[in-house]
């Protein structure tokens, strides 16, 4: 093959091979994007729909809210997975100085809001660890926010999704069953007054109570899932020293009919 032929073949081959490669990479890219979009659509469509494989041989009543499945039932049907609907939402006050590292000083006032927003992530992660002690096998933070008050306090709120540590149990029903939600107050008729430094111990006891309550339901119904735990706070009249806390849990179960 002489030099002229090589040059001629080269001139033809470069665009042809280039086009083939371009088409190949385009296909991979398009397929990848389409695949991602498709799975995202699937995920969105699945929200509000319980896993159809759950208790497929049973007729379960009380699962619907309008046309959609109830959020608690959707979460229950995905008991072993992290589910957006299964959550702990906790609000509590801490002292601003308790957010500082050793030797660190409070930042200038213009940066306090940024500071508490950043440091709240640590508190949210710590809350997940607290949850794992009794209630959760897995935990992720989906939201954390903080607001500094004028009196050296910071109101923190965290939102967590979790997978329950204790077993769901067994469904006693053979053919027909009902989905039931039980809402229980975990604090008394008046809120519990808790010191700022004692907040974590208090919340830990709330999570333990929720687990115990679920254990109790399981002994009667055979099964129980923790759907939500909600902990709220308000400054007590002696706002310099304590906060008033309330807690509620929503548990769910499949009852035999």
């Amino acid at each position: 093959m002489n030099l002229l032929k090589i040059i001629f073949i080269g001139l033809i081959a470069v665009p042809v091979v280039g086009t083939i490669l371009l088409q190949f990479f385009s296909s991979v890219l398009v397929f990848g994007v389409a695949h991602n979009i498709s799975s995202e659509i699937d995920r969105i469509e699945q929200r509000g729909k319980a896993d159809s494989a759950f208790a497929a041989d049973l007729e379960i009543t009380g699962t619907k809210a309008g046309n959609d499945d109830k959020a608690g039932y959707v979460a229950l049907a995905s008991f072993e997975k992290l589910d957006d609907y299964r959550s702990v939402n906790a609000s509590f006050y801490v002292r601003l100085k308790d957010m500082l590292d050793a030797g660190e000083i409070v930042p200038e006032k213009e940066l306090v809001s940024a500071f508490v927003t950043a440091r709240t992530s640590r508190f949210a992660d710590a809350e997940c660890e607290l949850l794992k002690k009794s209630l959760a096998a897995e935990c992720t933070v989906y939201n954390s926010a903080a607001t500094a008050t004028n009196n050296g306090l910071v109101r923190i709120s965290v939102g967590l999704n979790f997978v329950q540590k204790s077993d769901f149990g067994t469904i006693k029903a053979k053919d027909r069953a009902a989905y039931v939600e039980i809402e229980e107050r975990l604090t008394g008729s008046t809120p519990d007054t808790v010191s700022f430094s004692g907040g974590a111990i208090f919340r830990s006891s709330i999570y333990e109570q929720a687990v115990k309550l679920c254990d109790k339901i399981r002994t009667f119904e055979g099964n129980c899932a923790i759907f939500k735990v909600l902990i709220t706070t308000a400054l007590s009249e002696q706002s310099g020293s304590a906060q008033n806390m309330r807690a509620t849990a929503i548990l769910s179960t499949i009852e035999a009919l």
Partner: protein
Amino acid sequence: MNRTKLIALLLIVALGGCSDSGTVPTGNPADLLNPEMRGYEAPAGVMMGLNETPYWVQSAVAGFRPVKPSGLPGKIEELKSRASCTFDSPGPNEILAKVQVDGSNTKSAVFAVSRHQMGERTKTYIDNLKAGRDIVPFNARDDRLGIVDVIVTEKSKPVYLVIAYNLPTIFNIQLAEGARISRIALVGLGAAGIANAHPAVKIQSLTGKAMQSCGVLPVREPADHWQFVQNVKQTPSLKDVLDKNISMYRVFSGWYRKNFGVASGVDSIGAMTASHVLVGPIPQALEARVTFKPLEGSTLLLSKNDHVFAGEQADYEKKYTHVIIEAATKMAGGDLAKLMPAQ
């Protein structure tokens, strides 16, 4: 923008670029006024006079040239804000000139930002990271001061110039020969500056937080040509918003009257946005025009700001984006990656 406006605007741009700045454009400058939500938007080249009368800037200014993006003041000095909400009243030997604009579309190479704003941006950046988005919220344009040339041709008496504004703006004084400014009162929100003022002129300013603490906002009187006012006519449910604006205007105008002896709205000079305003008559002969003084090389008296930067926008963005990232890293305890959600 219609075709006439476009042609006129192109003419302005073309003439602005010419070295022969003695030429006054032909055509009607009113054709270039753009009715916006809160009044007229006058483009560079159109000078706003008394009661929103437009003129070509070249009809009062000789040697006018558009602002260079790189044109920096020679010196920046601090302009202290008043602690009190009151100003000296005009004397019998003074003529009061009321200039009021929201801001200017002509931008300078001067940027100003407060520590408070930087703190808010740092917080937003942290929120973005927590949501999995590594986006530094930074819009340099928001911090860039506009420029309004204040052309003073009034010679009957010394002028007591009262300038009200809303957005960060530099007022570049252009004084005609034989005209005199006795005092300047500067009232408004955000950063503001005065350039090319004679050193003997007494300047009193009430800006930023000090202005806010007086409980008034420099609101212009809503007029029929405002798009917002027209919208209210078509959508009566918006009337409450208009009423609120009118009420804010009345509060400001009442405060203005208490200080300067007259309401703010009547016989004022300006527009929603303008790059040049005229205090006094148009000179009768081209030779009598004011010689243009650019911001470049001038002494700029600037309201107190935590961070001031003069230079290219890209350099400003680079520097202050870095400041935000550094502050966020410190607030996070040294590691921004820990703020990002777990994958």
